[in-house]
């Protein structure tokens, strides 16, 4: 047994770890008396990738390419491959992943199971929208190949199905053409949420990537709106990536009310002063935290939560305003706070998170009951707004909020593999 925790480091659980490395042996390896769940890089924050006292099928050694068509950009690979490795191999060859989240240190299988989204959701949808085919292996040895046109119901259950429909071993992804690694970016400060929504709407048509940092300490909802488009201007040199590692777990969270307000004020004003147009390397723009390895340690020994919700657009401004007010009032939170609008498109997966509206994501150092009380107040706002919480980040939402937020749950359960279970499935579904 090995003690494993998820990215939030809230707790450690014993697991039996079984490494999958030969895609033709997976069906045999999945047969077991205990239940298991596929586990890649363990970058999901909560308990979606954990299975205390059960099995974790470690997928990171399923990291082979299978084929690539240079003319069409269609890539077939094993599901344990990292998004980073795909980006680094193919961007110099003029292709890149059409959708990536805020870290590229995750596996393709994890990106599908959580149907991750990126800064270009309004134009490109989520990760699952670019999957043409996948191979799913069930614990009874059945192999299911599915895609948008092949057993689409299985596909829709598996994309965003948080690993519960089987283990994804092989995938075909449609890459997109790019002229290079550079983005032309613009940073625009905003003073309140109305300004944020105006900026977001005005940017949808002309900017491929939009995201914003929001100051969760200031009550008004000030922040920095960042938008970017690919560019072929290549006068810059590839950045030398210097990786730093958070070397130890500090005894107290480095993010606390004493550090948060001065940091946020300084950050906002510095960036406001530097605002305007720039050229950025895709790694710096898309994955700013990937060069600080093990940054999750900075929240101290008790770990941290991330609370990410999406609420419909009509009520979005009021709901976000109400949540920010609660957070500012509590004095909790972190400088890692993101506000972003989703495009007006229906999610592909039965259990996918993105839906038309606005999403707010914030980290919170774990302060026990105090933090959980704050989440209950945020839950009430999300519930009233008919929004939902992102399963990849969650470790504590109440069942009624889950059921209300994911109305296709009953349909999804038909596709569940009985030999698969996670801490999240037991908490929210009961088994």
């Amino acid at each position, binding site marked *: *047994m*090995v003690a494993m925790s998820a990215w939030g480091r809230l707790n450690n659980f014993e697991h039996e*770890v*079984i*490494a999958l*490395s*030969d*895609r*033709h042996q997976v069906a045999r390896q999945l047969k077991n008396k205990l239940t298991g769940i596929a586990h890649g890089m363990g970058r999901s924050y909560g308990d979606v990738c954990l299975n205390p006292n059960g099995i974790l099928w470690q997928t990171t*050694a399923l990291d*082979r*390419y*299978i*084929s*690539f068509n*240079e003319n069409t950009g269609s*890539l077939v*690979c094993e599901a344990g491959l990292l998004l980073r490795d795909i980006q680094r*191999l193919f961007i110099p060859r003029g292709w890149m992943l059409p959708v990536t989240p805020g870290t590229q240190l995750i596996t393709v299988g994890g990106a599908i199971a959580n149907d991750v989204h990126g800064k270009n959701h309004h134009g490109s949808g989520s990760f699952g929208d670019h999957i043409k085919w996948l191979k799913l292996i069930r614990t009874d040895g059945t192999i299911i190949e599915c895609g948008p046109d092949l057993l689409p119901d299985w596909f829709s259950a598996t994309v965003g199905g948080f690993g519960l429909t089987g283990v994804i071993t092989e995938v075909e992804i449609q890459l997109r053409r790019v002229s290079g690694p550079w983005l032309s970016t613009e940073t625009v400060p905003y003073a309140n949420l109305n300004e944020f929504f105006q900026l977001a709407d005005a940017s949808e048509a002309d900017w491929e990537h939009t995201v914003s940092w929001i100051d969760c300490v200031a009550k008004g909802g000030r922040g920095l709106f960042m938008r970017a488009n690919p560019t072929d201007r290549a006068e810059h040199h590839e950045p030398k990536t210097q990786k730093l590692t958070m070397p130890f777990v500090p005894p107290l969270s480095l993010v606390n009310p004493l550090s948060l307000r001065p940091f946020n004020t300084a950050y906002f004003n510095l960036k406001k002063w530097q605002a305007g147009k720039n050229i950025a390397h895709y790694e710096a723009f898309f994955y700013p935290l990937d060069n600080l390895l093990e940054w999750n340690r900075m929240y101290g020994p008790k770990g941290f939560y991330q609370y990410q919700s999406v609420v419909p657009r009509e009520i979005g401004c009021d709901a976000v305003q109400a949540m920010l007010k609660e957070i500012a009032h509590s004095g909790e939170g972190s400088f890692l706070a993101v506000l972003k609008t989703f495009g007006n498109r229906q999610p592909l997966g039965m259990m996918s998170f993105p839906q038309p509206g606005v999403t707010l994501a914030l980290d919170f150092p774990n302060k026990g009951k105090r933090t959980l009380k704050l989440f209950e107040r945020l839950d009430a706002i999300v519930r009233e707004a008919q929004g939902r919480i992102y399963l990849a980040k969650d470790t504590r939402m109440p069942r009624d909020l889950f059921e209300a937020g994911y109305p296709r749950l009953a349909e999804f359960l038909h596709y569940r593999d009985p030999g698969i279970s996670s801490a999240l499935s037991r908490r929210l579904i009961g088994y």
Partner: protein
Amino acid sequence: MQDNKRIVIIGASSAIAEHCARLWVENTNVDLTLVGRNAEKTERVAADLRVRSPLSIIRVLEANFIAPLAISQLVDEICAKGIIHTVLIAHGSLPDQAACQQDLTACHEALLVNGISPVLFAEAFAGHMQIANQGTLAIFGSVAGDRGRKSNYVYGAAKGMVTRYAQGLQHRLANTGVKVVLIKPGPTDTPMTAHLKQQGGLAKVEDVAKLIVKAIHQGKPVVYAPAKWAVIMMVIRHLPAIIFNKLEI
């Protein structure tokens, strides 16, 4: 493509060898011959490398790893195709020590696969390389070959044989253009050591491969990967029996 570096890997589907191959194709186009016991498995490695490096030439050969005549024929064929820059002899299989003690067939198999077979391959290549008077022949020993321990001495004996063999070959080829590199990996996180995972402390296969590729490039006579094992094994080799025999290792 005549100018591409020619590399041959024996046991190409082993995880460490596969990662070495990935590093070799990363920056330059190579002419790579992958030899494996199982063509399907080796073909999977080849397909991956072809995507990584579309301009490299990747060939796959299935081979018998035990029969001396088959080994000699295979190596003759490979060498007939031209000068070889690098040969990596990487195959092996970590046996169950308890099974080897109870069953001489298992013991025999372990000694063959991990000791005799790599030596026969090396010996077959050495002659051709000596005539060409160039190239680097790298062969996998193991930290387990440095001193016999009750937990895995059958494997250790096979790898100790490879160590002694490499020493002799280095002596024989000392005044030629051929370099012989003996690689001693420590416990590495690969499918071969999956059952040891629970104990922790396994090195990352990417890091081990990096050290090996670098050592081969430099033509180092012996490389421990990761490097800390050089120190650990020096201590273990020199422990007096009175202490050593008390250790549960």
